[in-house]
């Protein structure tokens, strides 16, 4: 954060451009140099070179290194982002994913010559099946939402095969936005069910909407309030009783690793975000990677190809009549599968159980430090995260949750997830993960408490935060009213 320069705009790479500078070197052609229009018809040729920057290699290195300094990352500090599981991303994973045998392997390399990669996928799928309590796993999806679509399309194909035309998917009002969006993409109508006063899904409301038109429920457990669904067995009886399928959004798997498995709770399908629970880096928004686990009755519908073991060999099976098909090219975000596999092999069973225990202990500890200063709409033992409300501050001094989030940036922390879940007004959702130390959490709690005091005593400093970041508060309204989405040459 050292590069704050008042007055001047930080330059775009285009603004560093000087005609004729180059930043790369390639060999001269070693094949006959025929005029290009002998190889490609003139009308198919580009008339003018694309307006890419003209910069030297040092220009490129300095520009993007400086940009990296204008970023916050888990390597630099604490990200208490609820529902995102921003845990430490091990460095050794970058080295193993970068091994040429993985990074330089073509997806259509003959299977006999991709046995190491196929073995890794096959083993990872089996490790994840054990972790989730499922019968089969696919690692095709690129992200959580992509996994949700994979899961719902398998449910759709399952009912289609049974000759049942079910049209609805139940989603709790506390759900991630991806759940209803996915249900729509899979061609389902969304039915929203409210939460009860303890923060569980309202079982009576669920019973009232469950009928033979419902294909599935999409549930997050622990839910987005950071609470375990205490009546999960009732939910299971209601849904399965009506012939529906149980879908688990595994965004919060970190809390229950080795403690409670989706399969044992009656879930028929689940997805696991490998970029959350299994430490693959978020990359500033992606790539993620996702695994979808299913019970045996849904296995015929898995996307193709599946990886199968035949004796000591691993093969790709495209010949699956009932498959939903493909949701992406090739076999998954393999580079991230390597990282997730390395993580599970590093942790082992006891290590993963320790992850859950420490994640839950850390969250409850942080909650204990903060509970006095903020409203706590659902006061229970939490799992890996908890949801506070900034309503008190808003009513007393007009300081909003957004203001407090921005103020946290001045204290050197990333902000928590805010205004989510939607059922909590002025929501502040905090997830420390198991990789944060007590000292970091103590410092974070001190910052939160200091901001709560500032909200009372000097609210202006909070309302105008942040003050120490590379730029001050940005005009989002202007950005949306007059979209400027690209630089253009004059």
């Amino acid at each position: 954060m050292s590069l704050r320069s008042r007055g001047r705009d930080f330059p775009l790479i285009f603004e560093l451009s000087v005609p004729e500078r180059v930043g790369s070197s390639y060999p001269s052609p070693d094949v006959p140099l025929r005029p290009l229009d002998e190889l490609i018809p003139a009308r198919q040729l580009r008339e003018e070179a694309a307006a890419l920057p003209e910069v030297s290699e040092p220009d490129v290195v300095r520009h993007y290194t400086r940009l990296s300094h204008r970023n916050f990352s888990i390597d630099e500090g604490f990200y208490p982002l609820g529902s995102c599981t921003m845990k430490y991303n091990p460095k050794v994973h970058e080295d193993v994913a970068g091994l040429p045998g993985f990074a330089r392997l073509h997806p259509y390399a003959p299977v006999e010559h991709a046995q190491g990669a196929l073995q890794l996928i096959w083993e990872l799928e089996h490790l994840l099946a054990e972790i989730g309590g499922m019968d089969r796993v696919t690692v095709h999806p690129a992200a959580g939402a992509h996994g949700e679509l994979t899961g719902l399309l398998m449910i759709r194909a399952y009912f289609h095969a049974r000759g049942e035309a079910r049209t609805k998917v139940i989603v709790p009002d506390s759900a991630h936005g991806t759940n209803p969006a996915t249900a729509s993409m899979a061609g389902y109508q969304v039915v929203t069910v409210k939460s009860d006063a303890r923060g569980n899904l309202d079982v009576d409301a669920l019973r009232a909407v469950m009928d033979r038109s419902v294909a599935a429920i999409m549930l997050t457990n622990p839910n987005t309030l950071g609470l375990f669904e205490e009546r999960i067995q009732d939910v299971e009886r209601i849904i399965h009783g009506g012939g529906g399928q149980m879908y688990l959004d595994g965004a919060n798997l970190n809390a229950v690793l080795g403690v409670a498995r989706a399969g044992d709770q009656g879930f028929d399908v689940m997805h696991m975000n490998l970029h959350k629970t299994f430490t693959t880096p978020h990359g500033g928004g992606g790539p993620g990677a996702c695994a979808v686990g299913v019970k045996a009755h849904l296995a015929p519908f898995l996307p193709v190809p599946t990886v199968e073991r035949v004796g000591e060999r691993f093969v790709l099976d495209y010949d699956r009549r009932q498959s939903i098909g493909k949701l992406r090219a090739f076999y998954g975000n393999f580079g991230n599968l390597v990282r997730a596999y390395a993580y599970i092999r590093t942790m082992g069973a006891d290590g993963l159980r320790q992850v859950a225990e420490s994640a839950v202990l850390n969250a409850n500890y942080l909650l204990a430090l903060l509970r006095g200063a903020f409203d706590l709409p659902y006061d229970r033992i939490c799992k890996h995260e908890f949801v506070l409300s900034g309503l008190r501050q808003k009513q007393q001094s007009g300081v909003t949750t957004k203001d407090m989030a921005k103020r946290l940036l001045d204290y050197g922390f990333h902000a928590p997830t805010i205004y989510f879940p939607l059922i909590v007004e002025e929501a502040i959702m905090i997830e420390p993960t198991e990789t944060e130390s007590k000292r970091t959490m103590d410092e974070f709690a001190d910052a939160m408490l200091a901001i709560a005091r500032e909200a009372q005593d000097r609210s202006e400093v909070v309302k105008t935060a942040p003050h120490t970041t590379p730029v001050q508060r940005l005009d989002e309204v202007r950005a949306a009213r007059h979209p400027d989405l690209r630089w253009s040459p004059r």
Partner: protein
Amino acid sequence: MYPKDLRYSSEHEWARSEGDRVRVGITKFAADRLTDVVFVELPAPGTKVQYMQPFGVVESVKAVSDLYAPVTGTVVEVNTTLKETPEVVNTDPYGKGWMILVQPDNPKEMDQLMPVDKYLAVIGEKA
């Protein structure tokens, strides 16, 4: 804040009789709740709209809300200036911030909408 000569819908649209036509917009209450309006999506003239069915969308940075037609009829004019200056929905919701002008099928439908005192009660404000 809430003109007496308008009729109001439960979804916070206002409707004003102008001869045999009805001008439609959203109330100050709705505009305030949305915060800064950044975009309004409106139907093309000639589009049929149905009583209390969505006819368009209004957006702020972090919220999006459907617009409901307070009367059934045909859109005869839309406020094209909102494309460039959506902010007038916040600054002048009953004037420059109008959205569509409708030729109603049945002008009597206006009677189903609320008068100002009833609308004020709905939003919990004093007259």
